[in-house]
């Protein structure tokens, strides 16, 4: 699975996610990626989120929308919302994976509960970072 989140100069956010699914999948199984609110979500009022991991758990948790809802309805900052969903909702039920997100103000967050996540971002000082583990 691959994904991107962005905020442009006009303050609009967007999210995009794409995947081949899981190896040897049967019965036309579909994971969270194409399900709006589970693997992909964007709303200028809170954040844009793209997820990757064990899709069945991300669907059951409505991960992307849950992060956005915590911002809008519970006043969470993006990092706190991502941490709560990835470590307190997903992990206890066995949902392994991660999310990338960008807030309406342009703050990027990359949060995962697995040993690694392929990722890249530009920080507020304009420096580009790439990482695996």
């Amino acid at each position, binding site marked *: 699975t691959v994904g991107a989140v962005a*905020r442009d100069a006009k303050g609009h956010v967007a*999210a995009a996610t794409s*995947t081949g699914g899981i190896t040897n999948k049967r019965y036309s199984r579909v994971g969270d990626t194409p399900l709006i609110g589970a693997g992909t979500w964007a709303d200028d009022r809170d954040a844009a989120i793209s997820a990757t991991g064990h899709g069945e758990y991300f669907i059951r948790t409505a991960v992307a929308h849950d992060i956005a809802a915590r911002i809008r309805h519970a006043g969470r900052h993006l990092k706190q919302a991502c941490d709560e969903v990835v470590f307190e909702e997903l992990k206890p039920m066995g949902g392994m994976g991660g999310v990338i997100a960008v807030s309406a103000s342009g703050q990027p967050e990359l949060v995962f509960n697995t040993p690694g996540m392929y990722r890249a971002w530009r920080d507020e000082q304009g420096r580009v970072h790439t990482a695996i583990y």
Partner: protein
Amino acid sequence: MSKSAVAIAIHGGAGVLTPGLLSPEKEDEVHQALADALAAGLVILDRGGSSLDAVEASVIALEECPWFNAGKGAVFTDSGHHELDAAIMSGADRDAGAIAGAHFIRNPIRGARAVMQHSEHVMLAGAGADEFLADQALPQVANDWFDTSLRRDQWAQNREAGAAATLEPGQKEMTTSSLKPGQKFG
């Protein structure tokens, strides 16, 4: 952060990625692929383009890279084919598009955007998605265009494992959690 501040982040998948799984050379290749994909979106944002165009450009770069499980380099289904899923969403108006189980669109994220912009639906799936996308003047490929030897080897290993390990009644289907570390790659 000022109104004009732009921001972008990308991922290429999460999983049991542990140091030593990849050689230093291969790690360098992955870092370079991630930097290139980020740059594809950044260049759009830095010239005042939309976040929608930026995320689409970055994901297309990741889909074209065989390292990642999307587009070229997608994993195989049990029957030895590829089923591609994608979604895109605009925060400005919460417009969204998605495809599931598509077979021939070279860049699935372009297909998701076509559903968003050229249909009244949010998600199209399977043969119907293929039919709609065939009319969208987007690059189409044969399904085996997505093949890579890395994924075919993983597919073969799993089939052997699956064949060898009879599923006890009620035993759950082979899922990623039953794969050895590193197999759910990217």
